[in-house]
Each structure stands twice: as C-alpha cells, then as structure tokens.
C-alpha cells in the first residue's frame, strides 16, 4: 500500500538540495560578515568627549600631524596630545567656546581627557609607527584621509590579511619620505616610483610571524 503522497517525491528531492544550498549560503554569509565593515568597525565615528575635527585642524588650519602626534617618528606609539598642547592655541583663540569646556576643565583639574580609541590593534600585535614612517609609508595608507574626517573613524579594516597586502607588496604603497605626512599626495605613476623607493629605502618584505607577534 502507498504511504506517501505523489508530492513526496518532489518534496524529498527539493528538501535535500535545499538543505545543501542553505548550508552553503549560511557559510557564505558568515564569511562575508567576518570581513564586513560591521565586524571590523570601519567608518564608524566614535563619540568623543570633545568633537575634535581633524578636517578643520588639518585641512583647514594645515597643522602638521606631528604637532600633536609628537612621537610618531621616534616611538612605536604616535602619541596623543596632552591637554597642554590643545591649550597652546586655545588659550588664545575660541577661549570661550562651549565645545572646548572639557579641555579647559581638564587643564584646570589636571584630570586627563578620556578619548575613545579609534584605531585599536589587539594586544598580541606589536605595531611600531616610527619604522613605517621612516620607510615612507604615509599616514593616509592606514588612516585614510583624516583631513576629510569631521569626526575620526577607522578607514581600513586593520585585519591581518590587510596588513599582509602591504607587507607582501610594499612597492604598491611606499611614497617619498617627504610626502609621508601629506595626506593628499598621490603618485602619478606608482609602478615605476614604488620599486625605486623600495630599493632606495631598503624596504624589507617582512612576513615572518615574529615581526608583529611576540
């Protein structure tokens, strides 16, 4: 005697293929999510105690990166400016600005400003700003056009795969040392310039694990 209805045949085959496709699709979704800006926290501006605008200070006033990030050429850590640095100018100008009250408060009380970290690497990654700057890797390569960011966000994914892109092919990203802090600069022909600079600056393709992890 018949147990199943005619439709069962179609159903059973469909469900089998359906299951396979569903599984494949799920994997694909996970894969995409992992590299999505959502997971890497790209392009999301953190809310800061003071809505500091790189756009205004860098593009508008043309202040050099190093005026605030003093140790970028000497240390692993680029350095976050002490309140005093802000006040160098702001005790002269916009002294009354409501927006800047936290800064003045900090100087009065000696309580440090608590900035939200935007570019955060895990603690098992050892990154050194100074060597990258010295080897002609521009700020823009990792931080994007900060001079166009009213509020600072993380432009690049900062995943290991992303780091490796450059460590494997520095010639595609290297720039003349004097252009390192020039966010707008772009090579007219990187194909020829890149390899030259790699030779000139003796840039090593460093992909061993202990270059970053120890």
């Amino acid at each position, binding site marked *: *005697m*018949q*147990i199943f209805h005619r439709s069962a*045949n179609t159903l*059973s085959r469909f469900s089998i293929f359906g299951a396979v496709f569903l599984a494949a699709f799920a994997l694909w979704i996970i894969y995409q999510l992992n590299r999505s800006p959502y997971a890497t926290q790209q392009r999301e501006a953190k809310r800061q105690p003071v809505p500091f605008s790189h756009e205004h200070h860098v593009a508008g006033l043309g202040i050099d990166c190093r005026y605030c990030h003093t140790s970028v050429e000497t240390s692993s850590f680029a350095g976050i400016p002490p309140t005093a640095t802000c006040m160098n100018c702001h005790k002269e100008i916009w002294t009354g600005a409501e927006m800047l009250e936290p800064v003045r408060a900090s100087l009065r009380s000696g309580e440090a400003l608590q900035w939200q970290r935007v570019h955060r690497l895990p603690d098992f990654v050892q990154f050194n700003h100074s060597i990258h700057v010295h080897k002609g890797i521009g700020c823009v390569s990792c931080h994007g056009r900060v001079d166009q960011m009213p509020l600072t966000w993380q432009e690049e994914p900062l995943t290991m795969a992303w780091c490796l892109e450059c460590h494997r092919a520095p010639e595609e990203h290297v720039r003349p040392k004097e252009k390192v802090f020039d966010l707008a600069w772009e090579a007219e022909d990187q194909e020829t310039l890149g390899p030259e600079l790699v030779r000139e600056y003796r840039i090593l393709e460093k992909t*061993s694990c202990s270059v970053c992890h120890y």
Partner: protein
Amino acid sequence: MIPKTPHYGMMAEFDDPTSLVEAAERAREHGFTRMDAFTPFPVEGLHEAIGFHHTRLPMIVLTGGIIGFITGFGMQYFAQVIHYPLNIGGKPLNSWPAFVPIAFEVTILFAAFAAIFGMLGLNGLPEPYHPVFNVSRFAFASRDQFFLLIEANDPKFQQEETRRFLQSLNPLEVNDVPW
C-alpha cells in the same frame, strides 16, 4: 508523471527467484522491452533477464576520485606555496611527500560521495511515492515475494493480451498497477 495510459503497468507475483528470472526471460523473448522486476534481495542475472546490461557508475566514481585528488593536492599547494609561504622547520615550501596523505584522503572522500550519490541519482532515489506500492501484495517484495512488472507504455502492451501472457507464466497472482 502525467498518466497517458489508464494504468502504470501490470505486475505478476512469484515466490522464488528462479521462476522470476525465467518469467523475465520469457517476457523479453515475447518482445516486451519496458519491464522491471522487484525482489527482496539482489538476484543474480535478473538485470540481464530484463534487458538491463551496464551502468555508468564506475566512470562517475573514477571522475570523483580524480577531482578529489586535484582538489586535495591543489588546496595544500596553494596554501603552503602560493598564498602564504612560510619556512616550516627548514622544509621546502612544496614538501609534496607530506601532502600525499591528505590528497589521498580527499580522493577517497570524493570518490565515495560520487559512488553513493551517483547510485542514488541513477536510481532516481529518493522516490517515496511509486505506483507499484499501490499493489497491496507488493509489501511482500521486501520480504519473500518476487514481482515482474510490464510497464503500460511498452509498445507491445495491451491490457488483455499482456494479462494473458503473464498468466501463462503461472505466477501466484497478476495485478494491474494503477497510477
């Protein structure tokens, strides 16, 4: 399946493999081409008796195996030599002897998949609904009874003539197989 004929076919029941095989051979001599037989276990020579001679399965499995080997070795070569070459204990990037075991395993895996899904595919399984189940006696096809089916879409199939022919094989029963 869109029924063009009133029935799916006609089925004769036997109680031992030998008579079924003989019946099948008779049917073929009689000129029937579209028939099938159902048994509780594989019966030797029955498939020739109903005029079914060879299957493409071995070729499918071989293909599966070859694809498997290429995938298995290719994956390892890509990972260790092309995508992220690393010095592992001073061994060469392409330490192919070390890649053999995995290549082998993947070969087997793919071949096995080919064998099983190939077989199911060729057999058109899963197929929970099939007209033959409409015959109440057919439940014994999975126990100890043996059935010969002449399909209605066989060019030589005529209701009465076919029934007469099947009766001549002295089966236990002859049944129409409704859609």
